[in-house]
């Protein structure tokens, strides 16, 4: 994925530990090496399986089981039902749709803005700014839930500070179509942790933009814009895409912030899962919640596949 990957040569050839007795056959050494490799990555694999694989399998299992035990497709049929269904009114499909929309918007806007902001910070002369933002982006990327909601209600709510300022200048938020409990509100609030997340992710990649490339481009008479179009952005593209995937996942899956901000006024899949598994009114229908979770897994897998396809093409430039 980076150019320096090319520097790492073939493992078998000159790794230090391979000065074994030349009398041993090569295939034996090879299988020994393979065993050693398998051994070395076992902890990681076990960890990953226990922490990711097992819960995912549990979700899949529960999604396809009912309260009466035994495999069933009824949960899936329920969540995939359309708006003509009298029980569900297609609300789960709407939830998926809204969540995807939210994920996309929340990946694109903060994603693009994040690249600019990260670049602006990296090229500034102030060490203080850089230190503040490196820690700040880590903290803010994890800031969410009810805390974020309360802070934004104090800012943009009906009695909010910014609302009052805008009013004084003659701008009424509701007239511009902004509603803090609605879709626009969620997008604005989400940006508060999405933007730092993008800055966090893209900053190391910016460090890979060598000064020498810039100078080379200038030497050949390229303007700043051409530098970016032909050198900067292609080099950054894999990382930008990676960052946007991260943003999509983060927005798609965000639960506490959306729940406290909207109180159910927008149909979103994570909130629906929470309602079934943790609410106060629907008892004993947890399997529907798991079915929604399964739906989210499917959507995210599809997005991941698309991402890896697009990224392969973007990385071609680097090879």
């Amino acid at each position, binding site marked *: *994925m980076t150019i*320096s*990957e090319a520097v*790492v040569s073939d493992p078998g050839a000159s*790794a*230090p530990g391979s000065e074994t007795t030349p009398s041993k056959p090569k295939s034996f050494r090879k299988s020994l*090496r393979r065993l*050693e490799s398998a051994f*070395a*990555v076992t*902890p*990681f694999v076990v960890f*990953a399986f226990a*922490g*990711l694989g*097992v*819960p*995912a*399998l*549990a979700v899949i*299992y*529960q999604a396809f089981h009912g309260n009466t035990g035994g495999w069933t497709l009824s949960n899936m049929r329920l969540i995939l039902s359309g708006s003509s269904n009298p029980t569900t009114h297609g609300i789960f499909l709407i939830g998926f749709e809204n969540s995807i929309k939210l994920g996309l918007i929340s990946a694109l806007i903060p994603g693009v*803005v994040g690249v600019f*902001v990260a670049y*602006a910070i990296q*090229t*500034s*002369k102030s060490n203080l700014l*850089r*230190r503040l933002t*490196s820690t700040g982006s880590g*903290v803010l990327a*994890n*800031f969410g*839930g009810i*805390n974020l909601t*309360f*802070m934004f209600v*104090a*800012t943009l709510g009906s009695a909010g*500070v*910014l609302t009052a300022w805008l009013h004084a200048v003659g701008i009424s938020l509701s007239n511009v179509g902004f509603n803090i409990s609605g879709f626009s509100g969620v997008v604005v609030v989400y940006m*508060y942790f999405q933007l730092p997340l993008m800055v966090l*992710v893209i900053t190391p990649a910016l460090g890979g933009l060598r*000064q020498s*490339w810039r100078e080379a481009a200038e*030497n050949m008479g390229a303007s700043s814009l051409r530098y970016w179009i032909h050198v*900067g952005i292609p080099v950054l593209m894999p990382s930008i895409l*990676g960052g946007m*995937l991260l943003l999509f996942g*983060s927005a*798609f*899956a965000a639960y506490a912030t959306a729940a406290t901000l909207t109180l159910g006024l927008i149909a979103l899949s*994570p909130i629906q899962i929470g309602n079934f598994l943790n609410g106060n009114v629907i008892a004993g229908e*947890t399997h529907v*919640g*798991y079915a929604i*979770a399964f739906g989210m897994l499917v959507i995210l897998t599809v*997005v991941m596949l698309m991402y*890896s396809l697009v990224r392969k093409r973007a990385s071609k430039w680097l090879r």
Partner: protein
Amino acid sequence: MAPLASGDPFEVVQMEDETVPEFSNGKPKRRYHFRWWRFIVLLLAGAYILIPLYAGLKFSFQGVTGGFSTLAYTSIPSAPGFTAALALSFKLAIVTMVVSTILMVPTSIYVHLRMPRFRRVMDVVSVLPIVIPPIVLIVGVIGDYPLWARSSPYLLSFMYVILSMPFVYRSLDAGLSAIDLKTLTEASRSLGGNWIKTMWQVILPNIRPALLSATVLTLALVFGEYTMASLDLWTTIPVWIAQFQVSSDGHVQVAASMVGLIGTWILLILVVSLDRSQSRRNRRRTA
């Protein structure tokens, strides 16, 4: 370089230590536009981040009757359960950081050295915690993990190691790719160092920035993660703040949010300041 005649304050900024290259057609003007542009970006981003903080702080310092009051803040440390939640969060943070380091560092080093093709696999696996949302993970855990595991808060630590994997791996990967790992290792081994010594005294110091960054991110994650902790019914600091908020008046609610945010920020700055090589890093510039 003389400032432009328009007198726009942005243009008085000095150019960096770059001379106009010999063979270029010498167009310094675009540098100035870039400066101005960057200022706008930082201003807007700064405003977006700082205004809500200001609003939160302003509201939290208001008393019930509207005047200035620190009551909201003073009632937090003495509130029931605060110290217990703080202790729990710290315990979880330390365990998470230790386990994450022990798991990821040797694995990453080994993979970088001996199994570059496996890096592709690790890339994918380390992105999986993003593909599988935390809420899905935790409901899976609740539904399936054995009782002895769910009775321990360190199950959360285990899950946090998973959650932080994308950031930790990305950090370590970048750090390991930036140094010439092969040469370093060969040099150290040929000088007679065994693997432990090599790792401890040669490799680790060279990836210290990456390691520090990974640690800091893990810390931020543990002190900010709410969804999994609350659904698993453990009262960590974020969960405590949420519970405390719901039962308090509006000013205390926002005050608690501010404490959570700024407290974590200060903690991270402290951790980062401990790193001596930070200043060395900052002198590197981007193109």
